[in-house]
């Protein structure tokens, strides 16, 4: 089959926050860049981020990057790499100020500076008390940020390939990445986008769980592509369950509600977080709050007729504050929970929200070739939620995701520019089999006359993850989960759909997405089963404590052989002293 090849200096896969931030760097350096996105850029999932982006601007009270760094290291339950964390926290102010200059409509203080609110796990003076560090545009920070970054790319005349889905990486014999094979959804046409640099910015894969705050498009396409190309996935057992998803609907209610003074109640009307985190209470790290809520529900103190949720109370803030600072939340609560939060509490449950693991990178966005040493995959970069730098370790702090995508989106863009300038070479020749893997996947799907339903296998995958790999994890259940998810993977090898059309075939897209979700789910379950400790978001009933002697290390999962390897955590920051692991109390 003849296949079109198009050449670019760089290809960016994904047009959410990190993809757009990186693309801006490339376009402004006058590189020929193609940005691929399954959806129009402003529909990417960054749009759904609500509460804020962290930066120690200190606009209302004293703050500094070192406190932010401490909070992030502690929040990560000491699994984050401290060099990368220092890098991110030091760059935060610059990243946020730059965004403001781009036109981001931040809320303002009376003196005209950016408004900041408290957020979970962010403290002053190394854990003393909650600090106002989250820079916010009402409760629509992600929306405002994504649109601003898109607008800035319009200005830079970035070239977008809208509604194109990347299928697989092109790798040559030496292991270098030379671009991607991608499909235009409108026509079903497949093309090779031949590039000197390929940057994955495909976001997370929260759709592996039934109860998820994530958009339908969050299917881990970059992770699937990486795994199939022989690149390991790091720390996949760590998934953040956001404390406040609307019960039943999964829709996110920002932690900013608690930042503004809202709090959680059990069925007895007790403000139970006082028991679990006496200092910062409802503003403890998300893993801590989610576990406390799940414990309340497990022990019969959940609210509602089935005692299956927790109540988020904010009516005491008053309708004025709610309308000014949390207007989107009021809208969501009315629509999805049938309550007006200015009058009644919102029913919430911990809901899958964020993938701490991902494609292993260094802090310049270069993808690591393996678990040992610092060798990189030449030509491949990753940033944002699909990457694991690792700054979030075992648990991400709220507002650090938007910071991550700004800082590492830019850093990886800068690295690409640097590498392409230094390496002023022509494109490497494409291998003869460049498109074979992708074409074989498509050919199998298009020629299938019967097989497994995409819908049913997807539902089974999500059920399995939800049941066997949730907030609390049990040894027997994980073992059963590994067996079941491998079975799901095997079924996913026989997917079938009726629609054989070339034109905007969303059935085909969903099948391809499911193949990516499978890689994410298998890596998650296998990694979780193997980690015999409790750390951050990974909570094992049989190993209830953190085990720094044996488990202060990153998991590396390889698709080939479903194999695990480990890499020590980097405890050494760039310029300051290490934060030594200690017991984590809030």
């Amino acid at each position, binding site marked *: 089959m003849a296949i079109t090849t198009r050449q670019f200096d760089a290809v960016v896969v994904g047009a959410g926050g990190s993809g757009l931030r990186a693309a801006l760097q490339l376009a402004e350096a006058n590189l020929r860049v193609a940005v691929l996105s399954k*959806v*129009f850029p*402003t*529909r*990417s*999932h960054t*749009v*759904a981020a609500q509460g804020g982006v962290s930066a120690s601007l200190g606009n209302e009270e004293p703050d500094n990057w070192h406190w932010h760094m401490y909070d992030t290291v502690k929040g990560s339950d000491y699994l984050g790499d401290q060099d990368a964390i220092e890098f991110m926290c030091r760059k935060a102010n610059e990243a*946020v*100020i730059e965004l*403001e*200059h*781009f*036109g981001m*409509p*931040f*809320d*303002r*203080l*009376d*003196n*005209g*500076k*950016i408004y900041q609110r408290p957020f979970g796990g962010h403290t002053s003076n190394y854990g003393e008390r909650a600090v106002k560090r989250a820079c916010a*545009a009402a409760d*629509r920070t992600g*929306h*405002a940020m994504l*649109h601003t970054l898109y*607008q*800035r790319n*319009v*200005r830079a005349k970035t070239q977008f390939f809208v509604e194109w889905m990347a299928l697989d990486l092109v790798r040559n014999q030496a292991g270098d990445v030379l671009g991607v094979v991608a499909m235009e959804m*409108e026509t079903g046409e497949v093309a090779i986008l031949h590039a000197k640099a390929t940057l994955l910015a495909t976001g997370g894969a929260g759709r592996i769980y039934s109860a998820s705050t994530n*958009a*339908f*498009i969050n299917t881990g396409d970059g992770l699937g592509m990486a795994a199939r190309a022989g690149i390991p996935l790091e720390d996949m057992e760590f998934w953040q369950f956001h404390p406040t998803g609307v019960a*039943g*609907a999964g*829709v*996110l209610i920002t932690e900013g509600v608690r930042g503004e003074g809202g709090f959680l109640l059990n069925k007895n009307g007790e403000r139970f977080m006082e028991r679990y985190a006496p200092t910062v209470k409802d503003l403890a790290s998300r893993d801590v709050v989610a576990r406390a809520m799940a414990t309340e529900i497990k022990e019969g103190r959940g609210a509602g007729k089935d005692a299956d949720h927790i109540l988020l109370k904010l009516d005491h803030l008053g309708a004025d504050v709610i309308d000014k600072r949390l207007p*989107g939340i009021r*809208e*969501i609560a009315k*629509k*999805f929970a049938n309550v007006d939060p200015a009058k009644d509490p919102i029913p919430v449950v911990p809901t899958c929200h964020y993938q701490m693991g991902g494609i292993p990178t260094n802090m310049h966005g270069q993808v690591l070739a393996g678990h040992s040493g610092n060798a990189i995959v030449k030509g491949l970069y990753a940033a944002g939620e699909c990457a694991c730098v690792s700054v979030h370790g075992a648990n991400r702090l709220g507002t650090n995701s938007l910071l991550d995508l700004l800082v590492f989106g830019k850093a990886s863009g800068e690295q690409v520019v640097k590498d392409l300038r230094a390496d002023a070479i022509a494109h490497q020749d494409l291998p003869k089999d460049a498109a074979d893997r992708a074409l074989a996947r498509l050919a199998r799907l298009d020629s299938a006359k019967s097989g497994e*339903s*995409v*819908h049913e296998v997807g539902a089974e995958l999500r059920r399995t993850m939800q049941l066997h790999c949730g907030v609390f994890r049990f040894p027997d259940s994980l073992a059963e989960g590994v067996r079941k998810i491998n079975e799901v993977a095997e079924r996913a090898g026989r997917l079938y*759909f*009726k*629609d054989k*059309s*070339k*034109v*905007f*075939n*969303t*059935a085909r897209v*969903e099948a391809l997405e499911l193949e990516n979700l499978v890689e994410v789910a298998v890596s998650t379950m296998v990694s979780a089963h193997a980690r015999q400790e409790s750390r951050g978001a990974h909570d094992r009933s049989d190993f209830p404590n953190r085990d720094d002697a044996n488990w202060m290390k990153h998991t590396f999962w390889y698709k080939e052989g479903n194999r695990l390897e480990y890499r020590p955590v980097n405890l050494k920051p760039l310029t300051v002293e290490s934060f030594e692991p200690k017991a984590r109390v809030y």
Partner: protein
Amino acid sequence: MRLSIYRYNPDVDAQPYMQDYDIELEPTDRMLLDALVRLKSVDDTFAFRRSCREGVCGSDAMNINGKNGLACITKIADLKEPVVIRPLPGLPVIRDLIVDMSQFFKQYHSVTPYVVNDAPRPETERLQSPEDREELNGLYECILCACCSTSCPSFWWNPDKFVGPAGLLQAYRFIADTRDQATNERLDNLEDPYRLFRCHSIMNCVDVCPKGLNPTKAIGKIKDLLVKRTV
């Protein structure tokens, strides 16, 4: 639940047609999007866009019982059956409910949709008072779903010449931003019998906006500024 849905796949259909469906809902299906996703699990040939399922990404705009809206925040209980679903009016149909939005985005791009400020960048943020920032409320929240522009007769007749309510709302978003320095150029760009003045204040845009925004009001403000400029 009974649905009547516009179907058209240029690969196989000579003409568009309406297809009736009767689907079993689950108790958890609350929004129209839930019903469409359930339908898709039965008939995988049915094509539509969707992503965030909470009314912020703007993907699943469609015409629902004659009115444009987002399927993900339209409650099933509020809909009269059979629910008649068509693609957004006035744009070329690619397939089923999926329309070609090029014209819509072209108009958005035509309003210089970014803050223009060529002054040297300060070390800190550019200051803006809370009152000045408040001017952006009701403007910056637009999700570019196109419900408004595709409900506007003026946009139907002149999609290539009239910017349309969504584009004009964004044009005013940058005019209203105290950090922007290009108000005059922005007004020049719109001073045209078609680009701005095809708006006849029919207010369909206000009626359908799923985010409760008011493009007509923003358009009125632009017109006022143009008048003020000439006096």
